[in-house]
């Protein structure tokens, strides 16, 4: 085995999809390599075949569905494509290992952390239990898990998301593999946790000389840790290059389009709005009480505490925060999907916070909401036309009139009016999100709440939907409340933002001011954690399609 051979090299690797798929191959002629101590990012949108590439290397392609049809995969110069399962099993864990997106589901909930990390050792080494335990403690210390001596006997649910991902990394690295494959390992994590995990992966690669194949859709992450970048689209490699080549001087139009779609962290200057206030909340609170009578300890959680936000017509106000910050609770209180425990929600001057469902109904049409998951925001059993006209018909509009308006709305959100009698599954995620916007607009609302409305979308689609939202805001003089965890998106679309943490608004003000000079330490740490903050991304929103 020559030491100069790359850790892993792929040569014209193809994987066939089962018949009846939307294309013949999941990946076609994929070639690249990962050198020793190198971080190679595979970046692409959903359906680009980046995860299939990782599965092919690990020999983990789902049996009976995907099959390797051509090409060679070499691990440290040794061909591994035709190897029997037993041989591959020996290599997995020892020479190559993998970490996944969901740290919760990747760990067994009923086994102790130490046992799970030590499992690889138990299978692949003749070490005694005591030696194993020592080695597990060492690796846990190496990935900076706090107090390994007591955590080794903890169960996964006792750890935070970031700690669980550290455990996964510890288990992957305990045998010092030459190749670590990380499949979107930080996508499910909050931005501050993500920053820590990225730092850890970079540190491990440096200290141990591990080659890392890092799969991601996030160019911020790429800018943060990649040495080299592989851009994939529709199962093919579009472009390979060093990080700076790809990010600063992309050669291919597709790469350029992707990078231009990444919203910049620098908010454009915006004039303050002085129009009438469409929504004002005053000391809005939502308290959840669990337990109590008959069922154990009483627990009180303040999901939202004393939140006061106002949005003017034609203005976009962002609520920014990590998971559990209470931003969605605030949105749901305003939309009156839940009743606030306390406080005032004034829509066009009327307090709707505690109205009964019957009294509330006339005000329902003033507030509309667009949800995160495009797969679930439309009833799969109803045509999109039926979904769009449902609201207007509820308020007495004749179905034929409503349908006529729905046709105009479809055109407005960039879809063909003829598609009204199709079902949601016939549309892509971005298209479904456009339909959800059309449904909201059909009510002619004063306030549109976008609850992480672009978070589940690919970056190029995200840019289009953001442009659409901005477009309709202007055209209908809408007040928009934009809930997001993504600072880049917030920077581009919001006039003002409120930063939330643990149910409390810690800082609020014009976007440009907060981005320029955050005053609260939490806001500081959020900005510091934003991946790729040192790289200026293309003026995606400014470039017209």
């Amino acid at each position, binding site marked *: 085995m020559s030491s100069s051979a790359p850790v892993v090299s792929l040569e014209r690797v193809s994987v066939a999809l089962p018949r009846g798929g939307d294309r013949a191959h999941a990946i076609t002629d994929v070639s690249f390599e990962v050198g020793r101590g190198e971080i190679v990012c595979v970046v692409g949108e959903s359906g680009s075949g980046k995860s299939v590439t990782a599965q092919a290397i690990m020999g983990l392609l789902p049996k009976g569905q995907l099959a390797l049809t051509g090409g060679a995969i070499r691990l440290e110069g040794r061909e591994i494509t035709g190897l029997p399962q037993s041989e591959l099993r020996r290599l997995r864990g020892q020479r190559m290992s993998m970490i996944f997106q969901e740290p919760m589901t990747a760990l067994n909930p009923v086994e102790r952390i130490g046992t799970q990390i030590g499992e690889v050792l138990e299978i692949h080494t003749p070490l005694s239990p005591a030696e194993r335990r020592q080695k597990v403690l060492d690796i846990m210390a190496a990935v900076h898990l706090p107090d390994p001596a007591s955590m080794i006997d903890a169960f996964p649910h006792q750890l935070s998301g970031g700690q669980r991902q550290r455990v996964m990394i510890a288990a992957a690295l305990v045998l010092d593999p030459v190749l670590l494959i990380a499949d979107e390992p930080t996508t499910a994590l909050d931005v501050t946790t993500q920053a820590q995990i990225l730092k850890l992966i970079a540190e491990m690669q440096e200290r141990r000389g591990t080659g890392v194949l890092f799969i991601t859709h996030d160019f911020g992450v790429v800018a943060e840790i990649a040495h080299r970048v592989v851009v994939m689209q529709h199962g093919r490699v579009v472009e390979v290059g060093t990080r700076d080549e790809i990010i600063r001087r992309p050669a291919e139009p597709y790469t350029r389009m992707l990078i231009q779609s990444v919203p910049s962290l620098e908010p454009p200057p915006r004039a303050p709005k002085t129009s009438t206030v469409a929504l004002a909340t005053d000391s809005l609170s939502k308290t959840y009480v669990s337990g109590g009578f008959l069922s154990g300890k009483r627990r009180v959680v303040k999901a939202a505490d004393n939140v006061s936000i106002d949005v003017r017509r034609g203005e976009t106000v962002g609520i920014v925060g990590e998971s559990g910050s209470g931003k969605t609770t605030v949105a749901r209180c305003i939309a009156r999907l839940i009743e606030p425990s306390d406080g005032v929600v004034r829509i066009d001057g009327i307090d709707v916070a505690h109205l009964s469902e019957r009294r509330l109904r006339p005000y*329902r049409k003033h507030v509309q909401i667009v949800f995160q998951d495009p797969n679930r925001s439309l009833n799969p059993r109803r045509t999109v036309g039926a979904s769009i006209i449902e609201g207007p018909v509820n308020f007495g509009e004749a179905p034929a009139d409503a349908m006529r308006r729905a046709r105009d709305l479809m055109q407005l959100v960039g879809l063909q009016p003829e598609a009204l009698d199709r079902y949601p599954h016939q*549309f892509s995620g971005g298209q479904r999100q456009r339909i959800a916007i059309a449904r909201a607009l059909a009510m002619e609302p004063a306030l549109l709440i976008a609850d992480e409305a672009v978070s589940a979308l690919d970056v190029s689609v995200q840019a289009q939907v953001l442009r659409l939202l901005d477009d309709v805001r202007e055209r209908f003089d809408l007040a928009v409340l934009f809930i997001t965890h993504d600072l880049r998106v917030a920077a581009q679309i919001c006039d003002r933002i409120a930063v939330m943490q643990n149910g409390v608004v810690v800082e609020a003000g014009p976007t440009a001011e907060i981005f320029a000079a955050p005053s609260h330490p939490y806001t500081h740490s959020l900005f510091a954690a934003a991946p790729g903050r040192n790289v200026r991304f293309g003026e995606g929103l400014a470039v017209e399609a």
Partner: protein
Amino acid sequence: MAVADATPLRPRASVVRQLVRSTSVVIGGFLVAVMVAIAVLAPALGTRDPAEVNPSVRNKLPGYEATIRDDDGNKVPVSYRFGTDSLGRDIYSRVVYGARVSLIVGLTVSVISIVVGLLIGLVAGYVRWLDGIIMRLMDGLMAIPAILLAIGLVSVFRAGLFAVIAAIVVPEVPRVVRLVRSIVLSIREEPYVESAITVGTPTPLLVVRHVLPNTIAPLIVQGTFICAAAILIEAILSFLGIGIPPEIPTWGNIMAEGRTLFRVFPHNILYPGIFLAVTVLGVNMLGDGLRDVLDPKMEQRG
């Protein structure tokens, strides 16, 4: 702004085609169809009056040929394909007519359980404050065994179809309620239901339009299993003598009657037993197949 590209029309595998492709749906459906045909066409299948007692041909083996006088005094040849029981009744006719009772009980019980369970389940899942009360009540009902309940009902009312159906429905309803409630609880959190709330859809319409359709597929599947269980329990109750009165031919009654002479004349129990087993097998296979086709989660795994 640019109009997004034409919406790609992905072909949707039709449910009917999937059903036809599923082996267990085809086999189960065929068995059930045969049983239904037998029950409906019973008079045309060369049967005699299943209640007719003829002391001269008691305890005959299958295939026995006899000549008996009919009502007008003419001698007619009769072939007892499945033999006769200890009262000289034709077992073939009794088994064929017995299919009627079994299928009526199975169908009635599943329809009543599904409808009642669906209504209670929707209320329990949607009206939060009623949830606890209804579910504790259901837990109580579930604790009553069908057989004990049947004995109780028979001692209060007369033994008969009504008592049997009531005795089977009561413990089945809570199972349906649980199923419906759990579906409602997960569907009511779906963004599309919440969107419907924000566009002002009144609650009854919301439930019927957005929640109810999601319960139909699982309920069809559950219905087949209830049907199979009901057919079995009815046979058990009749066998124990607490179900349908013994003069009415049901598979359970035939077996109960043949029990005493089982060692000498096993056909008394064998034929109704085979019919019972085939019917339950058919209904269960149909239910299994339907679940695989209708339940999207199972489909992905398969």
